């Protein structure tokens, strides 16, 4: 799991609002930095890292909600981030299961091999199905200029 990026420009004596804005924008950029790797899909860690980053972003947004007067817009951004977590979670769950069962397949008795291999094939098909909504979501984020709008709303 990728470590959280350091946030520049925050200090204990600064106002919560200024720090909140810096943290939220850093976390958003961190999350989006994993997007192309998640789309590629060769390395399953990108989906995982993007999901973890989205959770860190959500935690920050929920903790700092009182700093933002335009509640409706704030909630809309938060909902979008929640959607990102959930969509990536659907893919991640299967990535983990496939990886796990592939390791198990090497250690189960011979008589059990066929069953485990069939299960892996079944899950791999399901994984492809679950990646489709993720692509749709990324397209929608691009079309709606999500990143730019988000950064504009939270900028210091």
């Amino acid at each position, binding site marked *: 799991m990728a470590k959280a990026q350091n946030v520049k420009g925050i200090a204990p004596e600064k*106002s919560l*609002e200024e720090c*909140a804005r810096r*943290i939220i924008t850093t976390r958003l950029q961190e999350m989006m930095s994993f997007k192309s790797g998640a789309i590629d899909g060769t390395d399953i860690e990108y989906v995982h890292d993007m999901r973890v980053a989205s959770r860190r972003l959500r935690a920050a947004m929920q903790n700092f909600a009182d700093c933002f007067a335009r509640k409706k817009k704030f909630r809309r951004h938060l909902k979008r981030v929640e959607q990102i977590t959930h969509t990536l979670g659907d893919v991640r769950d299967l990535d983990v299961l496939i990886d*796990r069962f592939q390791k198990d397949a090497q250690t*189960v008795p011979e*008589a059990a091999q*066929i069953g485990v291999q069939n299960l892996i094939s*079944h899950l791999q098909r399901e994984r492809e199905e679950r990646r489709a909504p993720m692509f749709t979501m990324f397209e929608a984020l691009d079309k709606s200029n999500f990143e730019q709008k988000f950064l504009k709303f939270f900028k210091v």
Partner: protein
Amino acid sequence: MAKAWKVKGTQPQSSYRWNAQVILAVKVEEAYSWAEAIRNPDNIKALHNLRISIKRLRYSMECFTINYGEEFKDFLEGLADLQGQLGDIHDCDVVETVLTDYLQSLPDQADTETGVIGINALLLRYREMRAAKYQAFLQQWTVLEEADFKDQLLRIVTGESGAETSSQEFRHLRPSAAEFKKQTTHLRT
């Protein structure tokens, strides 16, 4: 999944340091609201909720690291350990559901028999692993409880004195990742 507790009383124009105390105290209480329910190994929901709450607490603490000293990081690592242990238990619970559903979806014919053997072998393996991981978690949870982990953490996040010494005491109670792996490795082979 239980919703995150709302944090009330933050002041956007007050210092980051002051607000950290308000926010983190709520997050600690939220996580510990599941403390009793997780004594039951079959309470999958409570264990899941505790895991998510610890995650929220951990990510919130990460936001405020700059306001605290080294001892804060020890607690952060302690929470990461707990989250990892709870994550392992959750993974076993997910596997149980997936395998059970998959078994039910298999056609009731002789040619699926060999497939059923494999899935049943996995089910047995994961049930044993889950039981061992829950015991390891409960043991660690109890050790931390006896060491007053929650109160020490609250003292640190709210800036009360005496926390430095406690953190050093607590450091010895954390099992190393290697030790934990050793405890459960035999179940993987």
